[in-house]
């Protein structure tokens, strides 16, 4: 499997602008999409800002830096999210140990109380710091949580429908993903609720090549029922920065690792 993975990765980095062969296995497409969206390089960093717009057009803003480290490609990962804006969440830190074979471990550090709060496993398809993004969207939904089938393959996209293995654990009955055939990045996702309506949409508006990795730089989540949305921008993106495992521990909650949070000069 590691060799196949290496080939997949090699194909991934070469595939930009080249039409690879047409894939027909939905599980393989989703595995490559998962790698493309969440496992670029062995680690990475990015600054992120979100504009949250509610149905009345009122806006809120969040800004944070994300550090990511892959324990294993398509396997366990670690995330550290350090907030800088707005002032009431400044220095709040979110740590995720993402596991493939069990529930993720998640901690939130609240600086006002000096409190390391742990978040229970069930609590993942709820708003991430007031955004239309969910906690689960930060670290990615496990491909094995859903079953996957082809809807169609167009010139540009693999279109897949995903059905949750455990329908009780989620608010949707299914979702459809438009996966770019070149980059394997999911460019659009639409979620259907039990009433049969598309109520949530994720769209990618900007993709840039960063260190050979096609990378999302602008995206939006829309709540189609209320009319609210969250826009997200990614900047100062770097891959393979050499993040050590020790960055992803309780130490970084109380004392965020400045060395690794510092903005790169580019």
């Amino acid at each position, binding site marked *: 499997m590691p060799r196949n993975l290496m080939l997949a990765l090699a194909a991934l980095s070469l595939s930009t602008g080249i039409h690879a062969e047409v894939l027909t296995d939905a599980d393989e497409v989703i595995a490559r999409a998962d790698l493309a969206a969440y496992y670029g390089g062995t680690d990475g960093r990015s600054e992120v800002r979100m504009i949250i717009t509610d149905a009345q057009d009122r806006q809120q803003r969040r800004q944070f830096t994300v550090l990511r480290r892959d324990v294993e490609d398509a396997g366990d990962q670690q995330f550290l999210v350090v907030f800088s804006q707005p002032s009431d969440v400044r220095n709040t830190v979110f740590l995720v140990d993402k596991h493939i074979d069990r529930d993720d471990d998640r901690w939130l550090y609240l600086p006002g109380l000096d409190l390391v709060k742990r978040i*229970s496993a069930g609590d993942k398809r709820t*708003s991430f710091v*007031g955004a239309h993004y969910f906690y689960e969207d930060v670290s990615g939904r496990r491909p094995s949580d859903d079953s996957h089938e082809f809807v169609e393959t167009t010139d540009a996209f693999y279109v897949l429908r995903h059905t949750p293995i455990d329908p009780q654990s989620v608010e949707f009955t299914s979702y459809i993903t438009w996966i770019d055939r070149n980059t394997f990045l999911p460019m659009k996702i639409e979620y259907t609720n039990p009433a049969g309506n598309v109520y949530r949409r994720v769209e990618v508006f900007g993709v840039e090549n960063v260190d050979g990795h096609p990378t999302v730089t602008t995206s939006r989540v829309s709540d189609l029922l209320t009319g609210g949305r969250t826009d997200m921008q990614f900047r100062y993106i770097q891959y393979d920065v050499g993040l050590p495992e020790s960055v992803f521990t309780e130490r970084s909650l109380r004392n965020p690792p400045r060395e690794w949070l510092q903005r790169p000069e580019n």
Partner: protein
Amino acid sequence: MKPWPLLLLLPITLLAQDDPWDDEDWGDDDEAAAWAGFIEAGLGTRLHSDPLLDERNTLEEVRWRIESEWQPGAATVSFKADAAYDGIEAGWDAEIRDLTAAFTLAEDYDIKLGRQVQTWGTGDLLFLNDLFPKDFVSFFAGRDDEYLKAAGNAIRVTRFSEMINVDFAWTPVFEPDVYLTGERYSFFSPLAGENIAPRPPLTAVEPDEKPANGEFALRLFRTFESREIALYAYRGFFKQPTALTANLEPTFAPLTAIGASLRQPLGPGLLNVEGSYYRSRDDRDGSDPFVPNDQLRMLAGYEWEARPNFTVGLQYYLEWTGDHSRLIDNSPSPEFEPDEFRHLLTNRLTYRAGRDKHTLSLFTFFSPSDSDFYLRPSYSYRHSDEWSLTAGGNLFGGSDAHTFFSQLQDASNLYLRVRYHY
């Protein structure tokens, strides 16, 4: 009179709003200090008056928070302070919550020096091994939860390693809890046999300021897979003035504590178990009625998301007083002494709606052994990144006048706070 006119200044800062998206401003990444904080007005009032106190309100303040951070060299200097006009104490009050220098030594040692808020342990609003100072006066008045933790002047050294992490906090001068003095709330006095509100307000005798009277707190901790394990030790004093001097003045008895905790996922939620043994150094055999006895404190809790956005947390807590029969035999007022076993159940219900815009919460303390309770309902509304509002209550009750929550019956209050973040 009262400084409400301060609030008129707010619209000036509001003019500084701009379109946050089109600009290419990602903020500075240099070491320049950014000032932030909030202005908050709070009002809390009793459901019924306390016959011992003239003041009907429990909260009546305008509070200004200012905070910043600098990074000179490899160190981080943090500053966070409040200035508040308190209508109940009829005066201005300034408090530094954070003034620290933090730096790393020899890669593995994180040092933090100065005035700081510190927290450890696994309980939710129940503290066993966390013997850092707490401010129950703020907590009962309806101030933000963060004020439950009081700041202390301390040196904190944390060493990180693969084997085990070691956390050491030295507080050179004992920092007691902010305790009930009779100024804002009356409290039960076993000597008087009823609630009192002394004038001048009660001041407890604090330990002499000498090195041996400092507080030493130690935590060894490690995470094994998803399981967090910690061992604790403390040498200092009981944080509440529960002892009496020879002159019958309230004071703080010497305390040594050791404990352990565990926190891990279980089923759909999180389990926490914690225990601590409180060794009362001046009353080893439990016969001195003016000094608290040894106690074993145990806690078990479970929290899970019962429905999307609806979280339930349950805790069972036990205080087992050692040598209890000796305490009763020697006490001048045995009817007011704690039960041998004090049981406490807590329940936290949290419901968040509209992407955390609205938070409804109810925290319940209920003691079947003391037959008393404390309810903390609250509603928070986050209107924008700048404006938020919290309304809630602190409701106390019980059947015996002397138990912890029951003595605060006349402090039961409803409050409202409006906050502007800048």
